[in-house]
């Protein structure tokens, strides 16, 4: 019987592939974000609003991750941007290998400067899988409750930006924005928070300005 010390991260292979994706994206001058949330928080709507705000200003491409169907990709396609659907079957998250497989497609659109990756709706596993993105953006919607960050700490801890979406519905719930912010910042003091509504358009400009500003610092 032999004892071996291994000392290796379980997701080392994914991290390695994510690193390769990051290098390739950087070489092509593409800034990328990985959007994560629970199902139904409004990720696709936020992306659509972001595309509308950036129309004519910046070339964007979208990768859609879903278990089944290309319904989200069809929604995005209407905005006239390149979109690639990745169906994961039963896997509850995108991984660096799946995203890496879409990069040739992405680079066939050399005008693209911003890549938005919409992850599978799930607040657990996507926290552990680096895709090679520059920033992870977690979306939670007001009706989900202001205690969401406390219930899913790993994803809030791993993210750079938090979008608190569906603010137009707050009057119909007992959601407290102050508590939501306090809970999110207690888990991750560095989180940048925006309050958005895809119905009223609240906060979308602030979010998009921030996003393009960040992009300019990484890929000027």
């Amino acid at each position: 019987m032999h004892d071996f010390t291994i000392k290796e991260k379980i997701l080392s292979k994914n991290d390695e592939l994510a690193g390769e994706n990051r290098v390739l994206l950087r070489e092509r001058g593409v800034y990328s974000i990985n959007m994560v949330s629970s199902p139904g928080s409004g990720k696709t709507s936020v992306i659509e609003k972001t595309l509308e705000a950036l129309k004519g200003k910046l070339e964007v491409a979208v990768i859609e991750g879903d278990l089944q169907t290309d319904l989200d990709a069809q929604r995005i396609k209407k905005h006239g941007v390149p979109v690639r659907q990745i169906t994961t079957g039963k896997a509850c998250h995108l991984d660096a290998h799946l995203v890496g497989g879409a990069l040739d497609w992405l680079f066939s659109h050399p005008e693209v400067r911003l890549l938005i990756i919409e992850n599978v709706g799930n607040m657990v596993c996507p926290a552990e899988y680096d895709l090679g993105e520059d920033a992870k953006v977690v979306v939670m919607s007001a009706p989900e409750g202001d205690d969401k960050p406390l219930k899913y700490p790993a994803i809030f801890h791993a993210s750079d930006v938090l979008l608190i979406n569906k603010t137009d519905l707050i009057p119909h719930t007992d959601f407290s924005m102050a508590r939501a912010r306090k809970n999110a910042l207690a888990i991750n003091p560095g989180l940048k928070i925006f309050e958005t509504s895809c119905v009223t358009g609240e906060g979308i400009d602030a979010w998009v300005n921030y996003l393009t500003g960040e992009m300019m610092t990484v890929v000027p």
Partner: protein
Amino acid sequence: MSITISMMEIVREHMARVGLKGLKRLKVRVGELTAVEPRALSFCFEAYVKGTEFEGAALDIEEVPYLGRCTGCGEKFHMEGFLQLCPRCEGVHIEELSGTELEIVSMEAS
């Protein structure tokens, strides 16, 4: 399950490299703040090894608490409820000491 598959691929590679076949015990560390539930990992491990060359192997999971150190007063503490808040001085500038690990530590094989 995909975590388990990644884990066992690493084990398989290591065993092939040193020419071993029988895995007896695998030791891993799982941080409190990861999205991995130790009981679910054990369950997936059992399901994975059944009928493979790893059948009969045991999985030891060391759960690593989410610990931090307050950069203000130096207090070391367990981040209860994952909150980055010093229980002594209520400082919010906390250096993370542990709790995000997701790694294979060692294996016993013949």
